């Protein structure tokens, strides 16, 4: 000790080593989470972007597997021109789904919206009978966890898809 001033340090080498180990583990976990976030596990990314179509190919929906509560998401629905009846396309969307996602805007604007028992029917006027109609729903997640969506046109099996809403 040779005249060195004594310093009181309430250290604990064993605890410190354990803490370093936990920190290293946490950093690795953070790196993995960020990589997964970049890939889209928590929304917006290759893991999240997906699509589903009706069996007859009349309706195709592009959506995000993973979305967030109070976060924006889009649902893009492509409807084949054969689905039009008298210049109109009637697209039905399940009410359950619309309760989980609030519609902020729809492009193009539907000419009418008719409520049914468990579906809401959006009616679009089409003036070009040979090109498919693409409808974009700008949505906001309202309810957390897993939701099942269903949409379709009259006389065709509906498109079913699932979306997960993170808190």
């Amino acid at each position, binding site marked *: 000790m040779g005249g060195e001033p004594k310093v009181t340090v309430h250290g604990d080498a064993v605890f410190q080593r354990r803490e370093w180990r936990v920190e290293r583990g946490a*950093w690795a976990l*953070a*790196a993995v*989470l*960020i990589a997964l*976030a*970049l*890939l*889209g596990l*928590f*929304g*917006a*990314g290759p893991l*999240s972007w997906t699509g589903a179509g009706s069996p007859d190919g009349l309706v195709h929906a592009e959506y995000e597997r993973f979305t*967030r*509560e*109070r*976060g*924006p998401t889009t649902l893009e629905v492509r409807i084949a021109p054969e689905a039009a009846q008298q210049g109109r396309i009637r697209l039905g969307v399940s009410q359950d789904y619309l309760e989980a996602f609030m519609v902020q805007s729809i492009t193009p604007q539907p000419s009418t919206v008719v409520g049914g028992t468990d579906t809401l029917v959006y009616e679009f006027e089409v003036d070009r009978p040979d090109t498919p109609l693409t409808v974009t729903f700008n949505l906001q*997640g309202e309810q957390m966890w897993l939701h099942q969506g269903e949409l379709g046109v009259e006389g065709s099996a509906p498109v079913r898809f699932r979306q997960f809403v*993170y*808190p």
Partner: protein
Amino acid sequence: MDSVLRALAVYVILLVIFRLAGKRSMAQITTFDLLLLLVVSEATQQALLGDDFSLTNATLVILTLVAVERGSDFLRWRFRWFTRVTQSVPVVLVSRGQMLREPMARHHINESEILAAARSSQGISSMAQIDYAILEQSGTISVLPKSQTRQQ
């Protein structure tokens, strides 16, 4: 994906702005610096979060910012050039009691600021008692009094 990229972009933008502004930009937190800091954070908020107010987004943004800071800390420890690029180098302002006019002028530091640092950190009242004064990377001025260095 966009949460991580937004956080990265904001980190880089802030780093570049404050790095180019110089070491002294936020060194002593005066009342106005604090206000400025609050306004900067308010202005950054929208760019960081976008229109996504979810817990997930906030978590990812915070996680990314902390991880990037930790990562650049590591790079600063590992590579000296990275420290120089992101945090600059210390500058000697007073050497053996002599004020060095050029570095002081470059950093817009005058005698009274060095004396203020000497008073608050060493209880020194005049330039004659100062051996060295150094502008640190953090922007603070370290003062070494004459007696202390003579003793060695």
